[in-house]
């Protein structure tokens, strides 16, 4: 991804994202409690944990959808936990939704085209104004090409012209991913990308994510499908009741008693 590569900057090599003691309370009950971890550029980090262990909340906090009650989110050495989601996205930190969000009335192509907002902004900046008076048609053509590219990457080319409302659940998730990609993320936060997908869909997803990673995108994937993550992630963080209970290589973490307990309950511990 040329454009993305062009924007690599800030803390080179070092940690791209750092989550520092993030806590989130919703009227009394604690969803995330004092979680800290870092994501280095080019990594694939997995976050696992049973349902209700606070994974989704944690992601929302990082993406700026909900402000943390406590703690900080550091992006390229800069605290971002008070910034608006669109600003955070503009800085290259993009999130997909667990249950896919799409513009149902628009065609798949237009969905992704809408998502080209940032791409165009980065590519043209103020010069976007020229597209208003018809000049800079190149920019527009460039976008269209890019959209097709992304659709191809996510294997949605065939569905391009039909309304997003008609897509299957799996395809909707793919579209969600495609739109996120269009934003040219440096770090892509994926919220349960595999949930509700069939086997071959999961495989396809895995392949796509691999390709992304090879293209230089850092990934942070939340999922409770352990198997799916084991295949992808180099490092896994386990949450339970909003706490970080383990961190390390997938096999280590999956054998960690705390994690086993979290998943299978006391009996097996």
């Amino acid at each position: 991804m040329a454009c993305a590569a062009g924007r690599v900057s800030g803390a080179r090599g070092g940690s791209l994202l750092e989550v520092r003691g993030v806590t989130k309370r919703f009227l009394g009950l604690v969803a995330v409690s004092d979680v800290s971890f870092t994501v280095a550029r080019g990594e694939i980090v997995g976050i696992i944990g049973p349902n209700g262990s606070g994974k989704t909340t944690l992601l929302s906090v990082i993406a700026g959808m909900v402000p943390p009650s406590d703690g900080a989110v550091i992006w390229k050495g800069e605290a971002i936990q008070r910034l608006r989601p669109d600003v955070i996205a503009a800085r290259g930190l993009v999130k997909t939704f667990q249950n896919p969000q799409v513009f149902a009335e628009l065609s798949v192509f237009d969905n992704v085209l809408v998502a080209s907002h940032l791409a165009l902004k980065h590519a043209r900046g103020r010069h976007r104004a020229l597209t208003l008076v018809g000049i800079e048609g190149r920019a527009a053509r460039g976008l269209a090409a890019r959209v097709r590219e992304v659709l191809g990457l996510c294997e949605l080319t065939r569905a391009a012209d039909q309304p997003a409302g008609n897509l299957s659940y799996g395809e909707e998730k793919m579209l969600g991913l495609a739109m996120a990609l269009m934003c040219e993320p440096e770090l892509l936060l994926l919220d349960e990308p595999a949930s509700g997908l069939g086997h071959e869909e999961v495989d396809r997803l895995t392949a796509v994510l691999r390709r992304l990673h090879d293209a230089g995108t850092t990934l942070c994937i939340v999922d409770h499908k352990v198997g799916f993550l084991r295949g992808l992630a180099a490092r896994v963080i386990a949450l339970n009741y909003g706490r970080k209970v383990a961190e390390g290589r997938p096999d280590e973490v999956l054998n960690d008693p705390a994690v086993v307990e979290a998943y299978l309950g006391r009996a097996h511990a």
Partner: protein
Amino acid sequence: MRSDFVLTIFIYTFLSGILTVTFDLIFGFTGQLSMFHPAVFGLSAYVTHLLVLHVRLPFWLATLPAAAAAAALAVVVGSICFKFRLKTFYFAVVTLAFAEMLRLIIVNWNSVTNGTLGLVVSGKPTIWWPGTGIVAIRGPVAWYYLTLAALGATVFICARVLASWMGRAFGAIRLNEDLARTLGINVFRYKLVSFAIGNALASFAGGLYGYYTGYIDPGYLGINQSMEVLAMVLLGGQGTLTGPIVGAFVLTALPHVIDLRAEARAILYGAILIFTILVMPRGVVGTLRAWRVRRAA
């Protein structure tokens, strides 16, 4: 002999068309139910004329500060509403509130606006015409083409904006604000942009309207103006550029087509409004479009 009667209906259609199209930019495309339109319509009518009157600006020059004023006002009102995340009904009522306050100011600021007596506009806009040179625009035919051109320009500008990334941002905001945010779209800013552009363009309708009828009064800012514009857009088809114009034509011509005693006429008028929207919930154009799509599929 040609009939001014028919031409006049078209002239009013085109003038209303400017209002409805720009309103649809805010409402149909960006999803913000604004009741502020008649306010800028009336305000710009006053500003334009007062500038011509006191500052001696030529009409066309005077419309620009008027548009600027409209945009500035829109930014103020819009920022307040959007900062506080006022949506649908709330947004409608608050913009209505601002419109009412503006109307009351104009009604009572006698020294400038001549209050309820209104202002009689004697002049006409002039244009340079090859051969004849500078000519004042008089008579229905001239006004027919002038207003048509104005409407055309408005539609063109709106179309360009909607075709650009801004239009895409508007749509995203209308359809799913949260998703729009995660895609890096500054929802607040683009709501504001849509609101400002819509109102700035609407201001031209005000200036022209005042100079066409030759009379400006605070009634321009009345709430029923708001209702009429809304009715036109819904009837014609929201979220389209042709729909609002169709609606403007229908509702402008309708009262003059029904030939009944006053009360019966008003009853029928209301009934037609109701049944059209019930039969075509997406307006004439919207429904036709959907129908064509279904036939294609």
